[in-house]
């Protein structure tokens, strides 16, 4: 391998340990800062802007960014894009975060029980995980979202139902390997109940991989909300979300490209940040991931 290694000056600087450490940790830090800024903007932004996200002004339709105090322009109804972007961010981040909590809860529960009990129950649970993973997630989510009444809570549940499997797999593998360790056997000899051993003794030892998986699940949940809202089956207008702001954007691509570019950039920034944080946490917890 040494023979193939590159040796330009740039690479030599790059290979110094400082540069590497600096970069690997700072990507996660960058992610944290971005998320903090985004959250702050979504919480405070609507109060600072001169326009309400629902205020329709038909005289100011399709104003390009930086028109007067419409910093990010206006949409086909003359609503301020910046105000809508921040309100949408509240919904999108909240849905992403809640879906993560729910799916991590389901996944952890299934994973702990399957990993600890094993046997036919563990087998059945893990085959169910495989079954859910066999569906292309968007087909399942869209079918469910179309069947059930689309409210933000229902959308959150539907997204969670389609994204708990990764956590379940990770937790199951972790618990299965922890099950045979001495401290668990000691717990059994002390006469502790199965529930106590599962959730009080084993689970705290598997917290690292769960946190990593949960962080990456936030990223995926935000993406999934964007997909289904873009397709018209997620968050319903007039409530804005980053996904449904893009819903009508394609037809105005030639005349008002900012309607498509701005919300998509917000989604990409949010999702990238969560992926960076997840990657940093993976290094920090020393979790072997894929």
């Amino acid at each position, binding site marked *: *391998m040494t*023979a*193939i*290694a*590159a040796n330009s000056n*740039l*690479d030599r600087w*790059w*290979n110094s340990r400082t540069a*590497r450490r600096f*970069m690997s940790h700072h*990507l996660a830090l960058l992610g944290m800062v971005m998320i903090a800024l985004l959250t702050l903007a979504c919480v405070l932004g609507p109060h600072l802007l001169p326009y309400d996200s629902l205020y329709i002004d038909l005289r100011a339709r399709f104003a390009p960014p930086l028109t007067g105090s419409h910093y990010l322009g206006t949409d086909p109804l003359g609503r301020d894009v910046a105000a809508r972007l921040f309100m949408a961010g509240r919904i999108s981040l909240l849905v992403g975060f809640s879906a993560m909590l729910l799916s991590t809860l389901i996944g952890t529960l299934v994973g702990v029980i399957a990993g600890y009990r094993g046997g036919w129950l563990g087998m059945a649970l893990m*085959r*169910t995980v*495989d*079954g*859910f*993973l*066999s*569906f*292309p*997630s*968007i*087909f*399942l989510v*869209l*079918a*469910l979202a*179309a*069947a*059930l009444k689309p409210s933000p809570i229902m959308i959150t549940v539907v997204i969670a139902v389609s994204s708990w499997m990764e956590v379940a797999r990770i937790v199951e593998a972790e618990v299965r390997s922890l099950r045979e360790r001495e401290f668990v056997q000691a717990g059994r000899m002390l006469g502790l109940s199965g529930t106590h051993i599962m959730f009080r003794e084993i689970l705290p030892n598997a917290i690292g991989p769960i946190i990593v998986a949960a962080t990456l699940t936030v*990223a995926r949940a935000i*993406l999934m909300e*964007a*997909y289904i809202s*873009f*397709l018209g*089956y997620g968050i319903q207008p007039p409530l804005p979300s980053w996904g449904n702001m*893009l819903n009508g*954007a*394609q037809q105005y*691509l*030639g005349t008002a*490209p900012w309607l*498509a*570019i701005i919300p*998509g950039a917000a*989604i*990409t920034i949010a*999702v*990238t940040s969560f*992926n*960076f944080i997840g*990657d940093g946490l993976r290094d920090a917890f020393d979790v072997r991931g*894929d």
Partner: protein
Amino acid sequence: MRGFLLNRLSQSLVLLLIVSVIGFVVLNLIPGGPLAQFGLDPSMTQDDLDRLKEQLGLNRPLWMQYLDWAWRLVQGDWGHSFRDGAPVLDVIGRHIFATLLLMGSSTVIAIAVGTWIGIRGATHRYSVFDYLGTVGAMVALSIPTFWFGLIGIYVFSLQLGWLPAGNMYTIGDGSALNYMHHLILPSIVLALVHVAIWSRYMRSATLDVISQEFVKTARAKGLSERRILMKHVVGNALLPMITLAGVQLPSVLTGALVTETVFTWPGMGRLFLDSLGYSDYPVVMGLLMFSAILVILGNLIADIAVAVIDPRIRLS
């Protein structure tokens, strides 16, 4: 090999069974359940609905209904589209070519580019290229496919005018060249995420192989680095990628649905959305089950292919 095949086949059958149960649950969650079609018809009274329920056996216990439904799936009776009365399997069959074409071409792009990035990243570990590859992959995984498609259309269709903004071919021009021209943008858009995934896995697979003894032996024999890489490393690193291709199938199908919507590509994803819009539940359910079966089949084929190529797996 026979033992391996039997074992793997039975696993797939169990998975099919579970998938069908999940599908049946979804079917019954739809308002009106299997009778959704008639709920929309104002000339149907509640009495009519009750009678129909009786006739179709929807008053029986759920497990009997499930068996009935599953047995009809096995026989190829997937119901009829609400929209034109055509058998669901025929409707799906009409759209499968477009999807397979899109998936196939984007998979070729993903494998070619992803393999190159992955191997170069592994052999030039911690170089600027490797770092950009890693960060680039994480960003690529974070870009919504439909947004990337919209940006692509904006730049290459609307601004530069190089590529068509949608559809599979120009009406009146069915030449292969015309198809290819329409295929370029959507397949690149669909490939992006999978280039990222493929390059990450290829990088770590190559690193695994490089650190093995036989590579040291090859080097000790005095083989050139290039020859070691091409003959001994790449082949071994590519093997697990066959499994990966199977595992990635659901996400390729998800991406295809979104890409087809943006590019008005007449495939299964577009059909799924159109059917949802018309509340054409037999087709929606059909596509849901069909895609899951496709995924199970794809994984089965990938595993068998790996076993055929690699004796270590079929003998263990």
